[in-house]
């Protein structure tokens, strides 16, 4: 018993204890994003397309609406008949394909973003209400959801567009008022889980109103899953816009839309396959990029939970 009264030495914290002092969540998140390869690929493609859309007036070699009937259906540059004046060729009216692609990206992105803002607001509002209040409110909202799901988007959109006439505005409104189902389903499910969490009970015991709880306690916790849904739904909206335009009830010519370009090229595709392949590949690339980002977000945010 010689060493009982030894002073307790200063002991540096363990390596391992840094776990409680680790960098803030957002910095870890960014580190994970940078490590996620497919997400970075998605980001890169998406950034290029967004850039092309923003800079369309600057980088387009021609006016996208200028018709050169003498040079209609010029094939792209890698074709034996192609040339550098029209790198990606011209369509049946002799409009420059590359320029129309750049401007078409604007149409796709604007329609995707704006319609998702509308549908996201509707879906999240209804979803949080249904999930938090439950009971009759939930039953009524669920009934709205069933009504919506029992009518195929394409059918309703086509029928309404034929009544209202196709235009960018109509397409945005239609998609905005049709694509809220997934937002609702996800936000309701997450809200329901959160409602059982003890921090909601704690907030209620502090006297917080239901509105305060929904907006300040629940909504911030929904952002992760909602970002994922939003990206995937933007992709969905872009595809639907292309489909509507392809069927002739979306964006109207001469406005450039990738779906419309496929439709206009359809008659010539047997002899000039590039005419549908080029806008189609662009659509695939854009939607693929957005989906990769969305899937990546899901992976990255899923890890952020409790170990």
């Amino acid at each position: 018993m010689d060493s009982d009264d030894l002073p307790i030495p200063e002991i540096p914290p363990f390596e391992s204890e840094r776990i409680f002092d680790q960098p803030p969540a957002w910095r870890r998140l960014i580190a994970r994003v940078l490590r996620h390869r497919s997400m970075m690929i998605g980001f890169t493609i998406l950034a290029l397309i967004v850039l092309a859309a923003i800079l369309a007036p600057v980088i387009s070699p021609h006016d996208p609406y200028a018709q050169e009937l003498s040079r209609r259906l010029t094939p792209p540059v890698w074709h034996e008949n192609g040339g550098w004046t029209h790198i990606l060729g011209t369509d049946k009216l002799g409009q420059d394909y590359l320029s129309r692609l750049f401007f078409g990206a604007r149409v796709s992105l604007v329609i995707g973003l704006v319609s998702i803002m509308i549908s996201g607001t509707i879906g999240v509002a209804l979803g949080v209400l249904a999930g938090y209040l439950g009971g009759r409110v939930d039953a009524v909202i669920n009934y709205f959801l069933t009504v919506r799901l029992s009518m195929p988007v394409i059918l309703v959109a086509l029928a309404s567009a034929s009544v209202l006439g196709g235009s960018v505005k109509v397409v945005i409104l239609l998609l905005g008022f049709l694509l809220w189902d997934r937002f609702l389903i996800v936000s309701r499910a997450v809200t329901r889980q959160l409602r059982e969490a003890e921090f909601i009970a704690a907030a209620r015991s502090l006297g917080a109103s239901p509105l305060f709880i929904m907006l300040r306690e629940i909504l911030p916790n929904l952002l992760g899953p909602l970002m994922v849904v939003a990206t995937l739904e933007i992709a969905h909206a872009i595809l639907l816009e292309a489909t509507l335009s392809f069927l002739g009830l979306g964006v109207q010519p001469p406005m450039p839309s990738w779906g419309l370009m496929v439709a206009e090229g359809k008659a010539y595709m047997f002899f000039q396959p590039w005419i549908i392949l080029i806008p189609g590949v662009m659509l695939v690339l854009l939607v693929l990029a957005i989906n990769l980002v969305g899937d990546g977000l899901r992976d990255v945010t899923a890890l952020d939970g409790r170990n």
Partner: protein
Amino acid sequence: MSDDALLEVRNLRVDLQTSNGTLHAVRGIDFSLRHGEMLCLVGESGCGKSITSLALMDLLPRNATRRADALRFKGVDLRTLSDPAMRAVRGKQMTMIFQEPMTSLNPSWTLGNQLCETLRAHTDATWAQARDRAVLLLEKVGIPSASERLNQYPHQLSGGLRQRVMIAMALMCGPDLIIADEPTTALDVTIQAQILHLLRDLQREFRTAVIFITHDLGVVARIADRVAVMYAGEIVETAPVRELFERPEHPYTRGLLECIPVPGKTAPGQPLQAIPGVVPNLVGTLSGCAFRNRCACAVEDCRNAPPLAVLRPEHGVRCVRAGRLSGVQAPQPDTSAERAECAELTPASRLAAQAEDDVALELIALTKVFRLGRGLFRSPWEIRAVNEVSLRVKRGTSLGLVGESGCGKTTLARMLLGLMPPTAGSILIEGKKIDPTDSAGHRALTSRMQPIFQDPYSSLNPRRTVFDLVEVALRLHKVGTPESRRIDVGEMLDRVGMPTRTHHQYPGQLSGGQRQRVAIARALILRPKILICDEPTSALDVSVQAQILNLLLTLKKDLGLTYLFISHNLSVVEHIVDEVAVMRGGVIVERGDCTQIFHAPRHPYTRTLLASILTPEPGLGVPDIAGDQETGDRCRETENSCGLRPEKDR
């Protein structure tokens, strides 16, 4: 060690790859096990005890790697076995029982099917033979009308019965070794005693060796032959059970034994010997003694990794000062002041000090009836979750509400907090009737009464900082200016022991104990008079539990608080409360002051509950709780599955 060893483990290491780096879950452990021996692996969460068991079974998760110098089971080195050969060992010679009986059985197949397939996978028994064996074993584990049970599905059985089925399943092939990973942690105390008794009997009857993994020293004391204490992925001390409890050597073992309240031993209301700090997280490298930064006896030499020193036969200790500490009291954290102040307030005197009419909280015939299955086409049925409960809690005292899961204690708490409207009855705070359903009443309620919940992981909004979590209460009640609130919140966080550097962290960066401190600060910031503590420590490790209990005791004294303390842990209740109410089936079956209840219980149910407390006293064995024979009726599960009780059973 000896040649007759059933299992011999040398230098077992398990690493887990996580997103934050490599986690060294098990850092080189050695132990051996004889035929028919019961070895307890005991330790707090994250000490590597469960990972050890999975490593033995070769059932580690995908991100884990296992290394060892030897893993000899019945003379065969498990490291050299191919997958099919290991599979033949698993389930036949070495089986496992898991913690969660509710989820460990496949919901889609009948019990008979799941029992029989084990035997059929390892032997050429026919279905008929397998069925006979299953019926025999189900009867052995005490399941009534066993042959009919074979056609039932898991969801038709209560948790206790399911755990019995799991035990029968483990015995199907007559194994030499059963690994039981916290098999009673999810069960109520009376059921726990029954299951432990059963396991001990079967182990003797079948001469099976058992590795029993638990965090509960009470359980260890009652069933183990030999004990290995684990800390931070290492075995820090191993000894026969009596030796370990009577002459603990390692500072961690001694800390563990001192930090749990034991009825009749620790003085009620006195601060417990908490181990400071938190269990280290095992990501990254660790050199020297892992316990040294929490150890009151640490010396410079602790920077070097100590070997497992054998002190006496079979008693090994991993500490550089091994053998030189016995009999030495570890330097105490400075609690003498608190002790002196508490000393004058023994429970009886505390009670007597109160005037009869000085009542902080009173419930009169509070009732909650759940009507279930209310639908268009079905007749409703009722559950009386809380049935005409009347209680009084005097100012400055604490009332413990004890009972097993489903007894209605959480429902009662939720009504008190205004989270759930009562069906009938009234709540009086300081003599004034409060109607929690109208907004003024609710407001009055919230400023006087605040909750502390069980699960520190779900009780804090992960998107708010520590400071914000506490401040929001003031903002909701429009108290003070931003500046005054900042000071107020800062003081409160200091009081509960949250250092300033943590004030701007998010709950995800805090340990369980720190989170519970924040929850306490949030509850106290509105200066309520009454705290409703709903199992405030049952999700915490025992060393942290002691810190939180000490904090609650100090706060009660300093702020003159009144507690309604809800818990299933009778030892904790005995330590902290003045009066006890025992609840069962929605009614209070007995109430009285703490001493009376614990020393002279009147109601048979109270006696059963008290009998099932497992104090860490080796040699006493597991009490034989007759209880009511579980008949497998699903009343408890029904209540659970209807989502009436968000309370988590751990």
